């Protein structure tokens, strides 16, 4: 429900932003930064509202306690960030490598959504805004929803491996990207294991932030 509301708000917010900056919705052109920010901000409202309602109705009402939204130490940030970079540049490329030998255009297709989201960011200000949205806000909100709310809810109903896999599939499905589905699902499993083993969201948030930050920075740098 929260995801559906967030998706609806994301569509409305990004459509309004697209109209404001003259971007044709549905185009494959690079998304203006304002459209990307409006899109993720709309989604966050729905996801945060779902987590807040669940915490109030079924928990203590405190996100930190109910969903493990906390960092235990700076090590959470360092280790989590390193895991995110490892997944982005070693694990996921290794998984896709055999398929790239069969489909030579796969690497380009794989990066296509990231190019579209980051391609219109020019200059330090716009890149910083994108980093704040995709490498700071998105990791906190998505981890809170998918690992805090969804995974914790499933852990009470399914065996641990099944709960982690189902939450990872939901995370990958929520991105609506066919080619990237496998990589995002695999990353979702890593994030699920991190949340389950540590009992908190801090390491996963750092991993998610590292994963997105290196993508935004590398795509901005090479442009």
């Amino acid at each position, binding site marked *: 429900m929260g995801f559906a509301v967030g998706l609806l708000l994301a569509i409305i917010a990004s459509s309004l932003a697209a109209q404001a*900056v*003259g*971007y044709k919705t549905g*185009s*494959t*052109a*690079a998304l*203006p930064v304002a459209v990307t920010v409006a899109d993720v901000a709309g989604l966050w409202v729905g996801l945060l509202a779902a987590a807040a309602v669940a915490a109030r109705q079924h928990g203590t009402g405190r996100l930190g306690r109910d969903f493990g939204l906390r960092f235990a130490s700076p090590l959470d940030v360092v280790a989590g960030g390193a895991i995110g970079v490892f997944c*982005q*540049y070693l694990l*996921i*490329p290794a998984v*896709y490598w055999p398929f790239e030998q069969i489909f030579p255009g796969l*690497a*380009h297709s*794989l*990066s296509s*959504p*990231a*190019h*579209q*989201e*980051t*391609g*219109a960011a*020019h200059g330090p200000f716009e890149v910083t805004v994108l980093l704040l949205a*995709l490498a700071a806000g*998105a990791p906190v909100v*998505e981890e809170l929803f998918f690992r805090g709310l969804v995974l914790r809810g499933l852990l009470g109903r399914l065996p641990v491996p099944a709960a982690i896999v189902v939450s990872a599939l939901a*995370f990958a499905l929520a*991105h609506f990207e066919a080619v*990237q589905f496998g*990589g*995002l699902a695999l*990353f979702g499993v890593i994030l699920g294991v991190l949340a389950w083993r540590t009992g908190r969201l801090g390491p996963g948030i750092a991993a*998610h932030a590292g*994963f*997105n930050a*290196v*993508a*935004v920075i*590398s*795509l901005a*740098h*090479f*442009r």
Partner: protein
Amino acid sequence: MTYDYAARRVWLDDHPSPAAGAQWGLCEAHAGRTQPPMGWSEIDRRAGRSEPPASLVS
């Protein structure tokens, strides 16, 4: 320089294909200073320009 107005995309190539689309010839210095308009993306395919690694944003 090749551009696709509908896709808001610009490509820089050493030797673009004649059939690749709307094109302008640029010297090296001007190509290096080219900034696409707001909302457009630029893909630099000239020799010696390295490509970014394949990346996902989640």
